[in-house]
């Protein structure tokens, strides 16, 4: 069963949608959650929550890629869960996430409630990512979307950790310059 057939199951409110989605994309979603939460039980709960969220949102949502859709929900839920567990804790349990390295690249004046502003930023971000060479793009996305460790990225890309770090540093610098040039106040 491909992703679109599975989406149809969601649309027709067929409960098989959940088991099919879990079977096909559960491992993928769990790896996304695990990179963030670093806990198997938490990651598994997160995947279950993501599937339920998809059940609630499809329809009206109709994702082109169910895999990416579930992955995105999982990532958001995992981040929410991590933030909630960190709330009230200072010091212990508050190691930075890879994504924190990008915190100074979110436009300070951006209205996150404005679909128009978000749409413009989305367009520019993706144009930038699309302009990167394939290796730099893979490293950037694996680090900041998948939240992989530097060593894992280095191993999977077959390059040294220092090279990964340098690539990320350069890409962040380029993104900063690009967003500034596009008129964003960082």
């Amino acid at each position, binding site marked *: 069963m491909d992703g679109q057939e599975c989406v149809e199951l969601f649309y027709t409110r067929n409960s098989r949608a959940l088991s099919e989605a879990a079977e096909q994309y559960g491992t993928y979603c769990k790896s996304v959650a695990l990179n963030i939460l670093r806990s198997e039980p938490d990651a598994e709960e997160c995947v279950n929550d993501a599937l339920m969220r998809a059940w609630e949102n499809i329809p009206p949502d109709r994702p082109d890629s169910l895999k990416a859709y579930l992955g995105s929900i999982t990532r958001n839920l995992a981040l929410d869960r991590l933030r909630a567990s960190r709330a009230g804790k200072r010091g212990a349990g508050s190691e930075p996430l890879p994504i924190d390295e990008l915190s100074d690249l979110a436009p300070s004046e951006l209205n996150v409630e404005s679909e128009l502003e978000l749409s413009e930023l989305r367009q520019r*971000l993706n144009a930038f990512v699309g302009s990167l060479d394939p290796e730099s793009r893979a490293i950037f996305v694996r680090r900041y979307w998948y939240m992989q460790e530097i060593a894992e990225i280095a191993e999977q890309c077959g390059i040294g950790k220092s090279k990964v770090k340098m690539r990320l540093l350069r890409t962040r610098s380029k993104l900063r310059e690009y967003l500034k040039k596009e008129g964003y106040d960082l």
Partner: protein
Amino acid sequence: MKNERDIMALLDDSYILEAEPVQRKQRKRKHRFSVAAAAVAACLGMTAITAGAVTIMNRNSTEFFYDSQAEEILESKGLMVSETQTSKHFEITLDTVLADDYVCRAMLTARPLDDTAKSFVEACLANNNGRVFDVCTKDGDGNRILSSDLYYPDSNGDLVIVVESAFDYFFNQSKASEGIELTFTSPMVSGLSFKYYPKKNLESKTVKYSDDITFYVSPIELATVGTSEEAVDKVGFRWSTFMWKEGGLDRFLESVGISREEYDKQMKRNKWFESRLVMLGKYWNAEKNTSLGGSGIGFYPEGHMELMPEGYTDFVGEGRFVRVFWFGALIDLDDIEGIIYGLEEIPF
């Protein structure tokens, strides 16, 4: 945006799918235990103890990971730290910190203090891919250092923790002098932290292999050092071992619990037996080709796993790239007079 200030939440699906990482289960990563593996390790541990001189209840991580003589050797060199901290459920002792020019290995023993702690360890080893605690290592400025934290259940119920870090361009020797803050953040041991200084405390030897490649040996690792990443990667690793001085091989075999007869028998079957023993240590099972510890090799209790060394080439500054391979045994440099790379002898 779902997550405020998370601009990556705006990324297109195509880029997300394009960059999907390889699933971890495909990787030959460091020591991860399954229940079966833990049981086998426990048996191996018992075997080692039978041959050794120290009672099972008192051993620490150095004895578990290396051999019964390791503590004495490290003690004589002033390398045992023996700093203990206690939480409600665990007593954790930082046994030793071993550092050379390129790597640092901190070895700890965690002792469960009650049934809750024991059950916690068992559950983690069974269900959590071998991971027990959350460990964070940071340099003196609070920047996170990439480290591997590895867990081995001892047969007496203790847990051996080995935290391995490699120096690189960012975390270099001058940063190391400011120390490493190792913090446990798991609820069972939350708040326990150790500060240690991974200043070089091990002797080392080097030998030139070619114009741009040098081999570096310390008691805990072999490093390939070169002036370009490509050159270092090209040399890679060919199951190196040592040119032993008289008596050196026998002392090494004793440390890994192998008799000379068994060694001779195995060497007739496999010319790389000795080099695997160096890299994988006393827990290597030649028949099953599985191991615990050593150069980035996982413990695979089932089936045949072709053991290959794993390493990363890192830029360490000053025009040097380094590829590191950990030893599964504690090598006495006084016992060796050179290395054997592939089948080529290269004296110091």
